[in-house]
Every structure is written in structure tokens, then in C-alpha cells.
């Protein structure tokens, strides 16, 4: 009997701890949503007050005045393009690196593995300098720069820096497939490319989904590369635009706009997460993880 009472107390403590952590995570996020519909003068009262009405003007201001609409479009473009490039480039490479035998195979595999340890934060300035040098050369010879302030190049850099992890994950999957599939296809007279495109790649669909999900979050949320490579005011991705809003908020107080901007940035990821949370957390443990 005594034991039962004891374990009830423990249970209560466990629930308390869980609830506390859940609250510390949910309250700040929920608060942003609530604050995004408050009017500006409401922010001078206690932050815990309930909004007086639904002040959706904040969203219109954020979308138009603060340019978040424009930035959203840029983010969608860059993310979609980078994901497309990544999948198109990484899939065949992973397949070949996993399934074919050739002289330099071990070397390339080791090099891509080593790439897992290179973090973009270290190399973002050299990348900037490289592109800047290219631009200076182009300006001299053709009178027009190309590399910096270019959404396509940004997407290309995103895709390239995601290659090591993606190839690691995809080729790990290809290695686990049985040889029979390819052999059967070759016996039927299928070419290498037909076998890859029609037989092997369709089987890798679950891993491709994982890759796309993870990198969607990474590209959508990224801001250091984007901030460094896009220096023009009108060319910004959402997180960088949000940083501008944060900085602007310090001088001219526009709280409502800022929180509306925050909601605009995080809503797509939250919705995606709600839809695929199971797949995401499973995928994370499947592919190890990304620093």
C-alpha cells in the first residue's frame, strides 16, 4: 500500500516536469502568435494582457511595408531551386558511389565523408571572396557582375554545401538494396541509365523524402550564407529580412509588425512539422544527424 502512494508521488513529479518543459516551449511560441495581432500601444502594458482585438493590419504592414511578401517569394524560389539541384545532383552520384566499382571510388567516398566535418560557418567568407573575385574579373571584362546578389548562385551554394550529408544518407540506403534488381534489369537488356532512373531511384523514394524534408528546413531557416552573399536590400531571404525588422525595431518601435513577420517566417515550418513530424524524427535517427 505504501509503495503505491510513493509511486503516485513520483508519477506526479514526472508529470510536473513534463508539463514545465512543455510550457517553457509552448508559451513563448504561442505568445508570438498572440502578440502578432496586438496594436502597437498595447505593447506598453504588461506583455501578458490579452489582445483587444484582431489587429490584422500588422500582417498587411509586415507583408507590404516591411517587404516580407517580397522576401517570402525569394525564400520560396531559393529553397525550391536548391532542393531541386540537390536531388538531381546527389541522387545519381550517391547511386554510383554506392553500387559501382571503379578505381577512384574509395577516394571520393572518403572525400565526401570528410566533407561532413566542414561546416559552412567556417567557409562562408572564402566563398564570398571567391565569388567577389569572380565578379571583379567579370566587371573588368564584360562590365557586369554575376556571382554575388544572384539567387541561382545562392541556391547552388546551398545545394553544394548539403551534398556530403545527402550523399552519405542516400548512398547508405542504396548500399542496403539487393544486387538482384540491377542484375535482372541488365539481363533484360536495360542500359545503365535506364536501370538507375527506372529501377533503382524509385526504390529510394523514402530516403529522398527524408533528404528533402531536412534540407527544406535547413535552406528555409538559413541566414548566414544568404546574408553574406546577397548584399542588396531588395534581394533578401525571409530570415535575413526578419533580422532587418529586428534591427529596425530598435529605433522605430513597430512591435506588431515584427511579430507578424515572425509568424510569417515560422508558420510554414510549423505546418510542415505538424504534417510530417513522425517522418522527421524517424529520419533524424536513421541518418545520424547534422551538426
Amino acid at each position: 500500500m505504501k509503495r503505491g502512494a510513493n509511486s503516485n508521488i513520483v508519477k506526479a513529479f514526472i508529470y510536473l516536469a513534463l508539463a514545465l518543459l512543455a510550457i517553457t516551449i509552448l508559451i513563448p511560441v504561442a505568445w508570438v502568435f498572440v502578440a502578432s495581432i496586438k496594436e502597437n500601444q498595447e505593447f506598453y502594458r504588461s506583455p501578458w494582457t490579452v489582445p483587444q482585438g484582431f489587429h490584422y493590419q500588422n500582417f498587411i504592414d509586415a507583408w507590404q511595408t516591411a517587404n516580407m511578401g517580397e522576401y517570402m517569394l525569394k525564400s520560396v524560389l531559393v529553397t525550391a531551386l536548391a532542393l531541386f539541384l540537390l536531388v538531381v545532383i546527389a541522387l545519381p552520384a550517391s547511386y554510383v558511389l554506392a553500387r559501382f566499382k571503379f578505381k577512384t571510388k574509395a577516394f571520393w567516398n572518403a572525400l565526401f565523408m570528410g566533407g561532413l566535418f566542414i561546416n559552412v560557418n567556417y567557409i562562408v567568407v572564402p566563398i564570398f571572396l571567391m565569388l567577389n573575385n569572380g565578379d571583379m574579373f567579370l566587371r573588368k571584362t564584360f562590365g557586369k557582375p554575376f556571382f554575388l546578389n544572384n539567387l541561382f548562385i545562392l541556391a547552388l551554394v546551398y545545394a553544394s554545401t548539403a551534398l556530403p550529408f545527402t550523399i552519405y544518407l542516400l548512398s547508405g540506403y542504396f548500399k542496403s538494396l539487393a544486387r538482384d534488381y540491377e542484375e535482372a534489369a541488365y539481363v533484360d537488356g536495360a542500359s545503365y541509365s535506364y536501370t538507375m532512373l527506372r529501377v533503382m531511384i524509385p526504390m529510394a523514394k523514402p530516403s529522398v523524402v527524408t533528404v528533402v524534408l531536412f534540407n527544406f528546413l535547413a535552406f528555409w531557416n538559413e541566414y548566414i550564407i544568404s546574408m553574406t552573399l546577397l548584399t542588396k536590400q531588395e534581394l533578401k531571404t525571409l530570415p535575413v529580412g526578419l533580422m532587418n525588422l529586428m534591427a529596425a525595431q530598435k529605433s522605430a518601435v513597430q512591435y506588431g509588425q515584427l511579430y507578424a513577420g515572425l509568424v510569417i517566417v515560422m508558420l510554414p515550418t510549423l505546418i510542415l512539422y505538424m504534417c510530417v513530424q513522425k517522418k522527421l524524427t524517424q529520419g533524424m535517427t536513421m541518418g545520424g544527424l547534422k551538426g
Partner: protein
Amino acid sequence: MEKKKKSGFIIACTAPAIILFIIFMIIPTIDVFRMSMYKWGGYTAEKTFVGFENFKKLSSNPKFYQAFQNSILLIVVVTLVTFCLSLVFASILSREKIKGQNFFRIVFYIPNILSVVVISAIFSAIYDPNQGLLNSFLSLFRGDKEPILWLGSPKLVIYSVAIAMVWQAVGYYMVMYMASMANVPESLYESASLEGAGRVSQFFSITLPLVWTNIRTTLTFFIISTINMSFLMVKAMTSGGPDGASNVFLSYMYQEAYTNSSYGYGMAIGVTVFIFSFALAGILNAVTKRDEIEF
């Protein structure tokens, strides 16, 4: 003929990935090491080879030591707190029969899908001295005393950053540990229960030893990701301020290399941090080595 076809196919498939990887990752990495040996500033093409001069300058710069100190503090504090919290919550969620277990798992992982900029903005709102959530909550207990400057005080700012980083990371490591705890066979716990072992002793004698390999891997991740994450957080939340008090390794590097355009010096910081993080990971890996337990 067949051989030619095969090697053509191999080249066609791998060349784009290899070329992009070399251009945007290998060359910049080599550049970091090469440029750390040069004195090179501004947009001029003029570079002079100075050997280890940049590193010498670095070792006598108090600003670097400030960043170094902050980084070490964050690595130790964030790793310890996140590690304990995520391990405890992982074992609660995988061992106990909890109502709403799925709900808690989903909620704890939310910070991980948010952009660092969003997290920084949220925490700026929490830490705001006058209208912030934290100060207004604390005023319930401490009355109308001077507001605490969470991000404005040079002493406090790094701890404020640490809290935001723990908030961000707990759910992630929890999910990692939960996955490896799911592999521990239930029969071990059953026999331990029969012998009268309680929750705590089960945790220390069964769960902990059996997920040890996983824990060791995550320790390396903790170091590397704390160094990177602290940069992203500090850059977005404080930009190293007030007056460099919250600078960490890579934010100091970015400030020197990009904002101040002293590329050579900045890259020397990068090289130092790179080597340091690998050395630290290696040492931790060696210290935590145990005989692997088969189950």
C-alpha cells in the same frame, strides 16, 4: 565498348557533384588555411605572406580571449544542462507509461524546426528589460525593482544566450536518446524490477550503460554544434554586444573577416577554432571510452 560505356556513365553521374563539392567546399576550406598565413585586408588584391604572424597577433589579443572564454563556458554549460535534461526526459518518455506521450515528444522537438533568427527574436522578446516576458514574470516576486538587463549586461548576456541554446537543443537530443533507448530489451528491466531495483537504479545500471555508445557520439556533436549554434544565436541576438561581451569563436571570426575585412586574421581565428574543436572532440572521445556492452 562496354567498359567505355560504363566509365562514361560513372563520370556523367558523379562529375556534377564532385565539381560542385570541390568548388564550394574543398577550395574554400583550403583557402581558410592558406589565407591564415597572409596579411590581407580590404578589397585590394595585395597579399603579403606573413607566416604565423596572424596567430601570434591572435594569441596576444584580449578580444580573442574573451571570445574563447565565452565559447568554453557555453560548451561546458550548454552541454551539461542539455545532456542531463534530454537524457532524463528521454528516459521518462520511453520508460514510463505517460498519457500524452506523443504530445510531449512533438512539443519538445518544436524549437528544432524554427530558424535561429526566429528563436533569437523570441528570446529578445522574453529578455526585453521593460516589456519582456521574463522581467514581468519576475516582478511578481521581486516587485518594481530595477529591471534586469538580460542582454544588456556584460556579465549576464552569455548566460542568457546559454538558456536560449538549451531551449533550442533539448528536444533534439531527447529524440536521439529515445531512439537508442528503444533498442534496450524490455526483459532487462523486467528482471531488474523483480529483483527490486527502482527507477533510478534501473536508469544507472541498465539504461545509461546500454546507450553509452550513443552518448559518446552525441558528445562530439555537442562540441561541434555548440560552436556553430552559438555563432548563429549570438549573431542574430546580440551581434556580440554589449561591447564584445557575448562574442564567441565564430562570431569574432565573422566580425574580423567579413565586417572588418581583415581576411587573413579572420581566417587564422577559423583555423585555431577548427583545430581546437577537433582536439577537444578527440580528447572527450578518448576519456569516455568504455568497453562496449553487447545486448
